[in-house]
């Protein structure tokens, strides 16, 4: 029985052979990939550095150009302001009474020796002859004129 039991494979599941633990070992990374990654990183950093430098330089250039533009515009504004002042003074001088009289004299104009009033006849209703004599103004006409003058004398 005992021999028979020993001759036949055991029905019981035999535990696998135990492998001794080798914790000090691990899978070595792929050296080629590692080098490639480092290289890419270096390139990226270099690119970023260069790009940053170029950006900074670009900003600097744009800033300098803007300063020039600002300076040019400031000068232009000053010149235009000066021109405006000159023109304004010139207009004021030319439109002064003395200048107008001088210009009128130059054109041969003279003062009227006296002023004549021309009175428009009062509007006649249909079928009547307009009055030949000047009619006095209606009492309200002055008030109307006065109101208009008060608003825009």
């Amino acid at each position, binding site marked *: 029985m005992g021999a028979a039991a020993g001759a036949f494979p055991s029905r019981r599941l035999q535990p696998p052979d135990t492998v001794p633990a080798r914790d000090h070992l691990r899978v070595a990374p792929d050296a080629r990939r590692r080098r490639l990654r480092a290289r890419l990183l270096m390139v990226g950093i270099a690119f970023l550095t260069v790009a940053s430098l170029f950006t900074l330089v670009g900003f600097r250039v744009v800033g300098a150009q803007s300063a020039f533009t600002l300076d040019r515009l400031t000068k232009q504004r000053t010149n235009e302001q*000066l021109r405006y*002042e*000159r023109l*304004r*003074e010139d*207009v*004021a*001088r030319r*439109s*002064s*009474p*003395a*200048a107008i*009289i*001088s210009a009128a*004299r*130059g054109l041969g104009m*003279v*003062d009227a020796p006296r*002023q004549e*009033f021309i*009175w428009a006849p009062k509007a006649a209703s249909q079928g009547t002859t307009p009055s030949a004599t*000047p*009619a*006095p*103004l209606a009492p309200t*006409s*002055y*008030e109307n*004129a*006065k109101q208009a*003058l*008060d608003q825009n*004398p």
Partner: protein
Amino acid sequence: MIAVFGVLAVRVVHLQLMSGDYYTRQAVLQSLHKIPINAERGSVFDREGRDLALSVRRSTVYADPTLVVDPAATAVKLAPVVHVDAQYLLKQLSAKPSRFAYLAHTVDDDVAAAVKRLNLPGIGFVPESKRSYPASPLAGALIGQVGADGGGLDGIEYLYDSILAGKPGELVVEQDPDGRDIPNTQRTHVVARRGTDVMLTIDQTLQWEAEYALLDQVQATQAKGGMAAVVDVTTGDVLAMATVHGTTPTGPAGVATPGERNAPVTELFAPGSTTKLITLAWAIEHGKITQDSTFTVPYSIKVDPAVKPYYDAEWHPKQQMTTADIMRQSSNVGTIEIAQLMHNQQMADAVRAFGLGTRTSIDWPGQPDGLMLPPSQYYCCGKYATAIGYGVSVTGMQMLGAFTTIANDGVTRPAHLLGATIDAKGDRHPAAVPAGRRVVSSATARTMTKMMEGVVSDGTGACAAIPGYPVAGKTGTSKKQLNGAYSQSATMASFIGYAPSDHPRFAAMVVLDQPAPQYQFGGTSAAPAWSEIMQFALLQYGVAPTDPAGEQFHKAQAVAKNQSCSVPHGADLANVLAHQRAAAAKGSTSNASGATASLPANTSRRN
């Protein structure tokens, strides 16, 4: 040794810990430098927004004496170009070791261009603001002028200096002992704030007319001077304010220039018969008389045995006169008879109520209150003298104010010169207008207007009549106060009134100072100029005629047929302007010099 170190240690502690803040402040103060930035001065406009005064940047010529190669030669070349004395230039060009010396301030553009063409070493330009008066010599005494520092000296420039001047800015920088800016140190920039613009109520065109109509008449009557003003009765706006001086041994007659007095608000004179308006209005208002009250009026009246009698201007027999007749004929005796019905206090109240003895609402520098006797000092005759315009001294604007009150239906209409201010943002702020107060009733005002219409249509003021418009006004002829007494020959001739009298729009005043004896009366000397100025104003503003038939005008023409009622129009404007330019060249009116318009040499204002 220990003691020495001990002392030093104490000193260091004292300096660092106890006095550190003080010395830090001192160091900062020594290194900080303030660079002032001038504010641009505001402009002065007329009521239509036309420039009367503005600031324009011009080039100022300077020299760096350390860079000038040959000062003498440079001075000789520059002198005729910049119109500055060569000796002065040489002194400035030789001012070593200074690196900055002014040569000519605010030169014109063509002068600056000429200097640049010379291409002289050490000569440069800096921008500097210059006050320009483009309508000059218009309203010179009214607008005034600014000094070398840009501050107002007189006139409007002085009156509104605080708002015209603006607020200067400053740049604060830290500099080393050699005056170089220290980088990255404290720096403060306070922006200068431009001055506020001032818009006057003056009308440039009407101002011109007032000035030159007055100038013509001053010359024609050989007066020592004259003043005129026009006020809008409906608003109190002063539309024109003119001062003219007559011919003097040193020059021809001309419009007052900057620096001269603005007579309508500064010069006192005895108003004479124009005061009768006040006397009669007060007597009517207080029920002493009516328009139709009758008086027996002799040629003279003696109010006190100790004093000389009062006379009328022309002899006449004893006659019956109504109040209207007394006004129309400007009877001194009749007015004194009316004054006899009033108490002393009433007479004093009358002149006070109409604004005499009190400065006008125009806040003009140096404006006098006027002189008036208090009732306690009337004694025998003060009341009567006051009633006919003696014993009081007034300004032209005060008297014009009295007439404006009547024109405004018995309510004062305070005159004002400032229409509005315009701030740096361009916002317009209308000036506050003082409220009026009632002095006499509407009925009294209407009665006075009617009586003053009679003065023009059938009285002493016939020369003031205007075709198409009824006029109300009063003549005045008073003895001039000279050396503390009334002159026997010199007079102040005036006419004050308003038109159209049925719907008053404008009130005006013309006063001639000491016209020649043949022109001594206000009715024949001042009234014609008044008429011309008023007619111009009415037409300029398109006021509708209210007397199309010319009823008053034709009556007045008949009365005045023996009088010369026209302004002679003899002023030679070219000579006047030439004289003013000459004065400007001497420096007395430097700010007004550049703006005079050139007229043909042989023309006058009118033919």
